[in-house]
């Protein structure tokens, strides 16, 4: 009784801290768990028939069309048509601005250059003529030195040569003597001709009756020889669509086979040719189809469907549940473990082979997946063996 009792107040403090810690941890327990364990959606796997339809999307293209381009350096004043407008032959499609002050200046500079070049040519010819005259006069004076007339001729020829040389030097004083003068003159003349011709164009007209498509001309744009301003599709042209189908799908297609499409306007889409895709000739085929339609809208995306026979598969999963990486296709199986603290779920990677797909569902084969839960969707990237919680985990 008289024994000294130990000081146990530290134990009381530890108990208080422990209970407080436990309270805090419990309060935030669900929050912490949600941070650590990603939420997923799973579905029990089942079998069934898959009516897989292969589809491909492409654009309607005309067989013949006119690309409308314009001479270089003109400014568009007005665009008179829009996409899919019907136009007649020679109908004005767009108007160009009259030559601008800058354009006129360039042209006048070129003309001045031409004038200078022509003067230079003229005086150069006169210099050569004067040289020839002087040479002849000197020759004659050499034979008959006492003849005063020859002396006068030489002097005149010299005077003529110096005048011609002066005139030539006046003309070429700033830029030096031009080489290949004739060629240069021809070039400048041609350029001036082209420019004048170009500057004379004020309108761009339709080459045929048809539909305007791909209008890329906008008011204020400068024209370029290579730029297509719009396309005019003649009325009598045919239209085609080229679909890119897998080789296995294209096996069932022959010229003349009809393909169903999702376009309201397309009345008939018939296979014209089946050719290997140059990008992947083994696995893909280019299926070119002739299209008949009430109305054509070139550039419209049309999806073509090729239905294939139904087959029964043991395992059908949502297409979103099949993942791919360097090792191939795989799905995540959600393994359920019953524990005293409730059911726990872990994902397990299972490599599978994709047998067929219709876009929504995919038929797979692999290990025995009967009555397993397959992961459909996850809120975070997963790893093999990671613990997850099902969407209705809280309710459990």
């Amino acid at each position, binding site marked *: *009784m008289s024994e000294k*009792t*130990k000081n*146990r107040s530290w*134990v*009381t403090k*530890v*108990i208080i801290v*422990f209970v407080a810690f*436990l309270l805090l*941890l*419990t309060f935030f*327990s*669900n929050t*912490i*768990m949600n941070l*650590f*364990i990603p939420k997923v959606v799973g579905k029990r796997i089942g079998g069934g028939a898959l009516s897989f339809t292969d589809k491909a999307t492409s654009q309607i293209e005309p067989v013949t069309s006119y690309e409308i381009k314009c001479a270089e350096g003109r400014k568009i004043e007005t665009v008179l048509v829009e996409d899919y407008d019907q136009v007649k032959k020679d109908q004005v499609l767009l108007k160009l601005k009259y030559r601008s002050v800058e354009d006129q200046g360039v042209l006048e500079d070129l003309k001045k250059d031409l004038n200078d070049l022509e003067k230079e040519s003229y005086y150069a010819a006169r210099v050569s003529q004067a040289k020839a005259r002087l040479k002849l006069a000197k020759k004659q004076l050499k034979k008959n030195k006492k003849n005063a007339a020859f002396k006068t001729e030489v002097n005149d020829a010299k005077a003529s040569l110096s005048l011609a040389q002066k005139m030539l030097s006046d003309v070429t004083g700033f830029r030096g003597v031009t080489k290949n003068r004739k060629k240069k003159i021809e070039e400048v003349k041609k350029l001036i001709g082209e420019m004048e011709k170009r500057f004379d164009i004020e309108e761009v007209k339709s080459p045929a009756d048809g539909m305007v498509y791909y209008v890329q001309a906008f008011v204020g744009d400068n024209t370029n020889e290579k730029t297509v301003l719009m396309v005019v599709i003649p009325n009598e042209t045919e239209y085609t669509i080229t679909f890119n189908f897998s080789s296995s799908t294209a096996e069932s297609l022959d010229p003349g086979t009809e393909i169903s499409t999702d376009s309201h306007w397309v009345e008939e889409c018939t296979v014209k040719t089946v050719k290997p895709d140059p990008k992947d000739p083994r696995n893909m085929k280019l299926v070119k189809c002739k299209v008949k339609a009430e109305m054509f809208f070139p550039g419209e995306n049309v999806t073509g469907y090729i239905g294939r026979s139904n087959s029964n598969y043991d395992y059908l999963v949502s297409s979103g549940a099949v993942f791919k990486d360097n090792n191939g296709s795989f799905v995540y199986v959600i393994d359920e*473990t*019953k*524990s*005293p*603290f*409730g059911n*726990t779920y872990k994902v397990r990677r299972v490599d599978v082979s994709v047998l067929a797909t219709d876009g929504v569902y995919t038929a797979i084969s692999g290990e025995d997946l009967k009555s397993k839960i397959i992961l459909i969707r996850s809120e975070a990237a997963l790893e093999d063996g990671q*613990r997850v919680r099902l969407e209705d985990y809280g309710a459990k």
Partner: protein
Amino acid sequence: MEENIREERRKQAILARHHIYKEKVQPQSYVSSLPPSEREEFIEKQRAANAVKLRRRKVKSSIAKVFGVIFLSGAAFIAIMPIFFTFLNSFMSSSEIEGNYGVVFQSLPGSTNEASRFIDEAPQLQLIPQEVSADQYSEILLKNPSYLFRYWNSILLTVPIVIGQLAVACMASYSFMRYRKKRREVLFFFYIILMLMPFQVTLVPNYIMNQTLNILDTPWAVILPGVFSTFSVYILTKYMRRIPKAYIEAAIIDGAGEWQIFTKVVMPNCKAPVAAMAILLFIDYWNMVEQPLVMLQDEGMQPLSVFLSKVNVGDIGLAFAACALYMIPPLLIFLRGEDQLVEGISQSGIK
């Protein structure tokens, strides 16, 4: 014979009072009858013999002591080993535990393999983890809210039971101590009978009673039978009856009422046994399994003790951490009240 001795003593006392000392004639023994030389020799011989006996006794007691120490150390080691084992193994990673002990758990029915099988290889008992890891704790505390909820279930069932039972027991014991009439003694006898009955015997009546009160599947179904348990009433009554009546009579003379006697005289004298009872009750009810298992059908309301038996099902990697955490509250309560427990046990004679 006793009368003669008493008479002799009386006479000696009378003589002593009169300062008369009469030498008592000593009876002659074998040693005193011997001549002095032989007596010396005899005494020497006896002394030597006694020395040998003493030495033998010493050796024997030393050997007994050594064996005793070895035995007790072994017993202590066996007792403390599982606790060490649990704490140290709780720092192993789940994969290490599965590698070491997976074979044991897989052999049990209801394992992850969903079938029993013979143990064809021995489990590897390891105290020291290959790689110390807090994975088990983080898994159980951060990713298993249900563990914490059940922890609170245990606390919320145990604490009210302990407080309630002590309150009821203190007052009941006081009444048994104060008024010892025949009818009350009979009632007390029934208390003892109830205390001696195994829990399983009263389980069915308790269940029926709970059903009648419509409190089945609620915490009250566990708390109420616990509050009115008889064990602490018996112990406290036995202790209170040892409090001197003079204390109570003095208090009555001073004008104290029953409540004042109870609170100011009796309870201050009962601090140690009440504390001891609180510790024992806490440990007892912290570990209860049958009551919640029978009375609470909803697994979400059951305490942690019920789940510890199944904690290795599914993920064996959490078992050690779950057990280690489970041990903390009783350990803290014991450490806090260790002195009172020893004192209370020694005073009230609790076994």
